[in-house]
């Protein structure tokens, strides 16, 4: 069993479980990417579609896990890796089917007719924004610094041909000539991961909070807690990714040796961190709607008399497939995701394409530079 097939065998149940629980962690007023007024969150069609979605995704998850494990046990290197994209595509199909049915009923019964559809901004958010937890970045930077120091110390003693830092996981036996680029490839990867996630979280800190029209004060309090929890969780995860990369670098620099499926061992810190962080975020719910709102002063309390009269704006037309946000009038770069946990880009904003190009371009550029220097 190769490291690749072993990872795929664990990834299949992970993604299966993740997709299966997503409707439970999404706000009640956004069901399968469809905006729903507060008094319609208990509609029969929503309950029916949720039950159908849970069953379908559970069956897909179990089938894909069995197939991935069987393929991994039989020694196939690449086929188990293909199972995960197929699983994600099938789960997305289940989501789109549920979304289509709820949208049909919403249109037929005119759920938003007569409601005041509002968008709310909290001016205090800009005057007193939550502080970015910079100290949570320190462990990640310490791991990167340690990797650089160990690499500089080990570099003179390394042999003339090294394990390919870019292909060590997929092709462990592949060797390349020793150069600073090939020897420190994993350090570049650490710097890229740390910079990327820190940059993303900084952009998210500047993006707008997810405010419920029916309950603005409490939703701002919850979002504030959610944002801090997300950021600290992601920065802790970045540290564990950097630690996994450090372990991989130590193997490449011949500090220790691994063979067969055990070459996946450096991934353990990342996998454990991913499970813990996802569990914490799933408990918070999207935008923190499952968190308690007390303990934080966000200013004005919501007048209970006004709650029932207001609904969030029906903005389904800006969400393609319920997942992709495209709104030319909205200058926001990132907004809260409609399905699952986290944020997504506004693809009508040119800066989003620049950012996505950078995400894909930097590793591609590193691979090209490494190839040219061989």
């Amino acid at each position: 069993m190769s490291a690749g097939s072993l990872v795929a065998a664990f990834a299949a149940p992970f993604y299966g479980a993740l997709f299966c629980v997503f409707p439970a962690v999404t706000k009640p007023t956004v069901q399968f990417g469809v905006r729903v007024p507060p008094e319609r969150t208990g509609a029969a069609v929503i309950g029916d579609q949720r039950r159908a979605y849970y069953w379908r995704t559970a069956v897909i998850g179990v089938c894909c896990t069995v197939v991935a494990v069987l393929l991994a046990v039989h020694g196939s290197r690449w086929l188990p890796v293909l199972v995960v994209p197929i699983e994600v595509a099938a789960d997305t199909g289940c989501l789109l089917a549920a979304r289509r049915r709820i949208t049909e009923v919403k249109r037929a019964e005119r759920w938003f007719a007569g409601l005041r559809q509002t968008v709310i901004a909290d001016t205090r958010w800009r005057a007193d924004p939550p502080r970015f937890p910079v100290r949570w970045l320190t462990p990640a930077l310490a791991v990167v610094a340690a990797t650089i120091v160990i690499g500089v110390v080990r570099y003179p003693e390394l042999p003339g041909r090294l394990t390919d830092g870019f292909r060590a996981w997929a092709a462990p036996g592949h060797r390349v000539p020793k150069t600073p680029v090939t020897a420190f490839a994993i350090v570049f990867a650490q710097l890229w991961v740390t910079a990327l996630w820190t940059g993303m979280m900084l952009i998210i800190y500047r993006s707008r909070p997810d405010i419920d029209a029916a309950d603005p004060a409490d939703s701002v309090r919850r979002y504030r807690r959610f944002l801090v929890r997300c950021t600290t969780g992601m920065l802790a995860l970045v540290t564990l990714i950097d630690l996994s990369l450090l372990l991989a670098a130590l193997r490449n620099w011949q500090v220790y040796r691994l063979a067969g499926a055990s070459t996946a061992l450096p991934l353990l810190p990342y996998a454990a961190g991913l499970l813990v962080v996802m569990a914490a975020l799933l408990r918070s719910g999207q935008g923190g709607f499952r968190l308690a709102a007390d303990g934080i002063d966000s200013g004005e309390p919501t007048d209970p008399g006004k709650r029932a009269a207001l609904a969030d704006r029906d903005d389904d037309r800006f969400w393609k497939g319920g997942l992709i946000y495209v709104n030319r009038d909205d200058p926001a770069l990132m907004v809260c995701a409609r399905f699952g946990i986290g944020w997504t880009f506004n693809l009508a904003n040119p800066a989003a394409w620049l950012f996505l190009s950078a995400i894909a371009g930097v590793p591609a550029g590193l691979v090209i530079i490494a190839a040219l220097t061989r």
Partner: protein
Amino acid sequence: MFLSIEPDGPVPIYQQIRDRIVEAIAGGRQPVGSGLPSTRQLAVDLGVNFHTVNKSYDLLRREGLLRLNRKSGAVVQRDAGSGPPSPDWAQDWAGRLETLLAEAAAQGMPADEIITHCRAAIAAFAFPADAEEHAPGHRTAIEGRP
């Protein structure tokens, strides 16, 4: 301060933003010297074009309620405690108020109900205590305050 708009409503968005800020100033939630988010930040928070917010802020600047500059951003320049407005402005406002009240009367709303609505609106405003003591007009107007 929570600033709410109805983007798909009949009133233009820039007018709604301007109206909400005027209401916040009158209600004491944005006193003189308090800052508002920059046009870009408020546009992001409301999900509207930043030129729309710019238009609202410019309207408030021309009405004398906001001061805009590059360093301090948008700052409230007048509120209920800033003294009486200019006679020209008061005359113009009285004309607009007459039209607004005429609309209610033309729709058949009784005079008592019109006055009740006016009292309820004024009750939400934050008049300074000294203005209540020295201005008989204000004292009459706020009789209905809780």
